[in-house]
């Protein structure tokens, strides 16, 4: 999970490193720790460390994790040659390691040699049939080949064994959303909320899925989850505030003409959200304030 302070630190270090202010190793460590995908920059700065024998020897054993990080970044940037050299260095140091074997498989994947990659992974799985990383690579490979149905199948099999892996649940949810299978995606997000109840982004994603499914009941639930996102983020999440506004409007439309007591509390929360949004825009982006104000007026959330 990336916190606000950590994100600010990452951005600060990134601009420092880009402007030649040093701290490349610190930056690479932070990227690794936060799981950020900044392949281009990792490749550039990682290679500058690896090509400098003095800087490289200063890292000690960390040198090999840097080789791994750079190899993956190079694959992501389609720099197959660089990746190949890094992996060759690693396999010379650690012959027969599964972790290096995974990198070799990924190299084949990047070259789109699917059959070879499949064979490489199958060979690794013979030795350790429950290796999580390799099983996840198989899912990714199915996804890369444009076969989400197979990816879903693999992931479901994987999750039967490793039920507590929230990254896998998130991936499954995202694939289901891509396939427009919202009911299944909602189930995955429920699982994620159970697993990590204080991560607001899962509440937000769950609410988004419910809102997309539509229907009065779903939208009422979605509104509750948008509200809990607002609660968990201290009102700093713009998307959740917009979600509250839209839910309020849709519920108003759906219950129009029905009994009046249901309507009593709902416009209240969405107009509060609208006010919070306007305040936020006033502070952070005053030039767009008039646009938002007209939109809110059209939705009859503010007068």
């Amino acid at each position, binding site marked *: *999970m*990336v*916190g*606000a*302070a950590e*994100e600010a630190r990452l951005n600060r270090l990134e601009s420092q490193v880009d402007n030649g202010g040093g701290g490349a190793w610190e930056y690479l460590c932070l990227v690794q720790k*936060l*799981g*950020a*995908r900044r392949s*281009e920059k990792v*490749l*550039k700065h990682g*290679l500058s460390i*690896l*090509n400098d024998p003095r800087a490289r020897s200063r890292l000690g054993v960390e040198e090999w994790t840097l080789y791994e990080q*750079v190899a*993956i970044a190079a*694959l*992501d*940037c*389609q*720099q197959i*040659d*660089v990746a190949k*050299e*890094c992996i060759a*260095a690693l396999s010379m140091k650690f012959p027969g390691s599964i972790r290096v074997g995974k990198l070799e498989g*990924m190299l084949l*994947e*990047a070259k*789109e040699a699917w059959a070879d990659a499949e064979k490489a992974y199958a060979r690794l799985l013979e030795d350790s049939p429950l290796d*999580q*990383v390799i099983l*996840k*690579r198989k*899912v*990714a*490979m199915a*996804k*890369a080949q444009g076969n989400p149905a197979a990816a879903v199948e693999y992931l479901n099999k994987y999750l039967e064994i490793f039920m507590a892996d929230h*990254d896998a649940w*998130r*991936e499954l949810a*995202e694939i289901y959303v891509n396939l427009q299978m919202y009911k299944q995606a909602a189930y995955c997000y429920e699982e994620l909320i159970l697993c990590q109840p*204080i*991560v*607001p*982004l899962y509440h937000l994603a769950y609410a988004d899925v419910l809102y997309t499914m539509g229907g009065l009941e779903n939208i009422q639930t979605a509104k509750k989850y948008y509200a809990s996102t607002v*609660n*968990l*983020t*201290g009102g*700093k999440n713009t998307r959740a505030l917009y979600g509250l506004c839209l839910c309020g409007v849709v519920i108003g439309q759906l219950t129009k003409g029905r009994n009046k007591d249901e309507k009593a509390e709902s416009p209240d929360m969405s107009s509060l959200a609208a006010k919070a949004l306007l305040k936020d825009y006033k502070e952070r982006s005053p030039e767009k304030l008039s646009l938002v104000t007209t939109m809110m007026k059209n939705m009859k959330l503010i007068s």
Partner: protein
Amino acid sequence: MGIGVFVGVLGGLLLAHAAYSTVQYRGMLKIMEEEFSGPPPNVIIELLLGLALCAIAGLAVPEKFHSILPYSEENRVVSLPANLDFMIFNHRGRALPFDPELKLKT
């Protein structure tokens, strides 16, 4: 930071000394063939002082404490890590030009 570490080391030394004096005291009691009912008062004072110093060091050395509120500004979750275990390589980024100068020199 420097003072905190110094206080911590001092507290640790005091605790070690208290242990040493207790062992000595018990040895003395054995010679005098008396029952051990409790540590002598100077050891107790030493223990309390050592505890206080260690507690001060424990609060002073790590410097800033993190907030435990999930929505406080410092540890508010703003994004999730990119799911790198599932990363795929045939994405649209491959259409971008990359610097051919980037090479691993061995």
